[in-house]
């Protein structure tokens, strides 16, 4: 088993899985609101997407530790000492960006709703003004 840093085959398949699909991921139309407090519906989507992503990672780590152990590789110290190359940094940047946009997807599915939320935020004032109020 090739567990060397920057193994090209593994990198290629990872990149292939994060290309943007041509099939739309979101359905057309407005999402219903189940909660009366503004933003709670979006928070629910975020929590559920986060939990899904967390589970994916937990299972991956579980497998990783077992596969490495089987291969006689003491994984933990190697992870601590590992230095990412430029390509790997770029790939992780992209993966992190995708994770964030998935968790926050409920803010983007409906342009009408998004417009309404932006108005609400604007009526709350600029961050500087808000900071002054808090102070």
């Amino acid at each position: 088993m090739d567990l060397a840093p920057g193994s090209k085959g593994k990198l290629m398949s990872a990149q292939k899985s994060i290309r943007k699909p041509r099939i739309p991921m979101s359905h057309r139309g407005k999402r219903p609101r189940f909660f009366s407090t503004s933003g709670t519906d979006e928070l629910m989507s975020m929590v559920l997407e986060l939990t899904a992503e967390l589970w994916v990672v937990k299972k991956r780590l579980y497998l990783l530790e077992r596969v490495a152990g089987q291969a006689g590789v003491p994984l933990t110290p190697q992870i601590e000492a590992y230095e990412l190359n430029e390509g790997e940094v770029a790939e992780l940047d992209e993966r992190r960006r995708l994770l964030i946009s998935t968790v926050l997807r409920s803010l983007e599915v409906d342009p009408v709703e998004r417009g309404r939320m932006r108005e609400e935020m604007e009526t709350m004032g600029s961050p500087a003004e808000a900071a002054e109020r808090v102070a």
Partner: protein
Amino acid sequence: MLKDLSHDLRVSPTRDERTRQEFVASLRKHVLADMAASMRANYEQRVLPAFERAHGRAPKDGDEVHDAMQDERYFRFYSSIRYNAQEMVFRSVIPVVDRNLEDLGARVRQQPGKVVVNPDLKVPNNVTNIDVHLSPGSYHSEYQPDDVAPGAIYDNSIHVFAFNQMGRNIDDIGHTFSNFVRLACPDFHPRAILDAGCTVGHNTLPWAQTFPDAEVTGIDVSAGLVRYAASRARSFGLPVRFMQMNATSLAFPDQSFDVVFSSMFLHELPLKDIRAFFREAYRVLKPGGLFLNMELPPNNRMQAYDRFYLDWDSYYNKEPWYKPFRDQDYLQLCTAAGFAPERFVEAVLPRYTYTPEDKFKACITQGAQFGSRTGRLGEEIEWYGFGAWK
């Protein structure tokens, strides 16, 4: 654990994609089993007594229960999680299908099966105007020439949606109803069987397995579905033909079929189309033939809470025709199309795949017994069906 689909059009998710699909399947199971049970308890212990105190009576229908539940915190969380899980079903399969689209197209061209596509057919508005049950692209959108994306999305998403409760090939409904006919009517030997609104043919193929001498045909309005269905049938070695056709206007001569079947189809249709399909079913059936629809049970036979529970899809899941259909008198729908009232049939059945045959057979003779498990996806679900003999 979700297994791969067991036919030649299966697409392989990465390990992380499969893990995500398993998460969504588990989330659905949690909300439809555990949370559903708590929500019912919540209703019975608090909401119902409060309603009775305020009105001097119990809620008379699903809408009244729905109104009473609106402000319940538990109902809001249940709905929010269920709605998000529905979106996440599609989000968990679309990237996999998308990545394999060209390859799927090539596989279908190589093994097309028996398929007739009709480029002149107008896909009806109830399919094109909304993304039915939150499925991006609805049942019909194509992304390349001769595309099978609608079939692949449907097949893979229902696999996640069903959380292993609808048969290995999501074909339990087909097995349940074809074997119901075989066991309930041992002297009935259908030679020509039609499945209307068949999507990927997952419930069409069991009819060919149960009645190997019959010629079985599946129709759907979506070209992307029938292309996929035909190739899928071919990979199972079953000579079933699939045609792009609208069930409201069948291109078959009078008296062509012994059985006209549909499953989970009527609730996607506007009432006028249901009526048109029933008239067409009557026309193409031979005398002595059977019209049989697997569907959600009718509201007029359910308790108020069960009506509300099943109608959730109509309120929130982009299934606008679901409740209007369930509010109908199913017997009246049949008689309006020409069927005699005394020839009406209905059944509530356990899942054939998960039930020993003797127990399944015993359930047939019981007649239709409605309960809270009827039509409700879970481990003890019972399927409902109705129709009439011509």
